[in-house]
């Protein structure tokens, strides 16, 4: 069992969720979201790991390979995370230039 990795994953995701729920600064919320994305990526890689496996690149001496598919998925997920972060920061810069603050005051209004 790969406890260190799974504990890291669970911790990163719940720390990120805590940040989104508890923090009021928008920049902080997006930092928390990027931590959460890192956690999810680690989860995918850990699922694909097989104890004793090697990287899925053929190098002459055949061995047991780890699962390549989650690695391909994570490559996609990393770039998507960066895209969302970039757009978010743009909006935050815009919002700050108009209101002079990034504190989130009004809360959820139903």
């Amino acid at each position, binding site marked *: 069992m790969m406890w260190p990795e799974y504990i890291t994953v669970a911790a990163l*995701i719940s720390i*990120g*969720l805590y940040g*989104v729920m508890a923090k009021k600064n*928008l920049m902080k*919320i*997006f930092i928390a*979201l990027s931590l*959460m*994305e890192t956690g*999810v990526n680690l*989860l*995918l890689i850990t*699922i694909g790991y097989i104890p004793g496996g090697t990287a899925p690149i053929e190098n002459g001496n055949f061995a047991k390979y780890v*699962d390549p*598919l*989650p690695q391909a*998925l994570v490559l*996609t*997920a990393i770039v*998507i995370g960066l*895209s*969302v972060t970039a*757009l*978010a920061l743009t*909006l*935050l810069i*815009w*919002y700050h230039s*108009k*209101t002079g603050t990034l504190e989130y005051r009004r809360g*959820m*209004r*139903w």
Partner: protein
Amino acid sequence: MVTPVLMIAIPLLAAFLMPLIKKAHRYFTFSILLLNAILSVLLFAKVYNDGAIYETIAGFSPPVGIYLAVDNLSALLALIINLFATINFVTSKKDFKFSMLYLLGVTGATGIVLTGDIFNMFVFFEITAVASYALVASKKDEKAVEGSIKYMILGSVGSSFMLIGIAIIYSQLKSLNLYDIAARISSMDPKMMWLSFSFLLTGIGVEAELFPLNGWVPDAYEGASSNIASFLSFGPSKASIYAIARLLIIFSMSRTYELALYVGIATLLIGEVAAFMQKNEKRMLAYSSIGQMGLILIAFSLIKDTSYAIPAAFFIIVSHASAKSSLFLISGKKGFGGITSKYVGLAGVLSLIGMPPMAGFWGKWYLLMGIADEKMWAVAAVIIFSAVIEAIYFARYLHKNLGEGESEDLGYSIPAAVMVSVSIVMGILPLIYNMAGGVLNA
């Protein structure tokens, strides 16, 4: 030779091409959207005649590669999305980057309904979501940006959750193909199945405006310019409610249907009551959208029990996409000044509350028939109660707006009129069909 992949590849190529041909971007985008709409008509005709189409991509047989799976309902949804996108695009007046974002958003929504692979669905979700974040903020005022930020926070949490759900499914079945997952889901540990189902439902539910996750909806709809609010109500939300329907079919378990039914009822009640209490018109329309999404989810959650579920969901989707989008389009001005706006407002409201000659009527009719078959009288009571509330606040809305108003902007109200006509046509067709059928039987 119609292949569904063209409906995704051509708009993407066009969007990549757009920075090079800045000048004519509006005509270019419009013609691409029109082409897509025509393709989707041809696609529907083909699917209707020959049965579902499975198209492999990159030449590898499905669970190894990706494939597109198009059945009747997904072809119809692709048609709805692209048709309304084409009509709605007429109102856009901004620069070429806006056109690019719009085209990409429509492509993402089309991809969600066409794809047959769960991770591919996630990627298309992200395309639509990122495009919608930027489009909501495109009005560039404080409210728009605030709505977009809220949307983005919830949307990012949702996409992370969706990815966790995908990871859990993959860890159990080592497959990402929707059909393959559905075929082997029973071999999955029920605990893990519930976990992945709830993560996926939460993730998609953000886009589909389901109950605990729709805090962004009123702000984003209020902040966005009227054609973008219109886009949101026929594009991403419809595609994602369809994704939830696919999810329900995959996790074909009576308890998951039950959960979806409860979520749908909660969404319906909360949305309608909040709309009833709301003073601001755009927010009221947004809350009413939430209510309609709940109604669609209720219809989909009956998919296994009754054959009325699919037509019900389809008619509500058509009615909501056409009527709500057109109401959002004319909501930029105060009151319905001209004759076209009056027609749009009246027809849209009639369709939404489910009056006879409109598509909305057939939606509620089939839904109630299905519920009556199953003898779920409590659900029927909830739906009728919400319809009454809906009728009251829409009557108030009409009363306020049908009087004198600002002179209308025909650039907005004519596309809106075209959109709402779809609802009327779709409402009359089944009537004629039924009558003709009755004559033939006699």
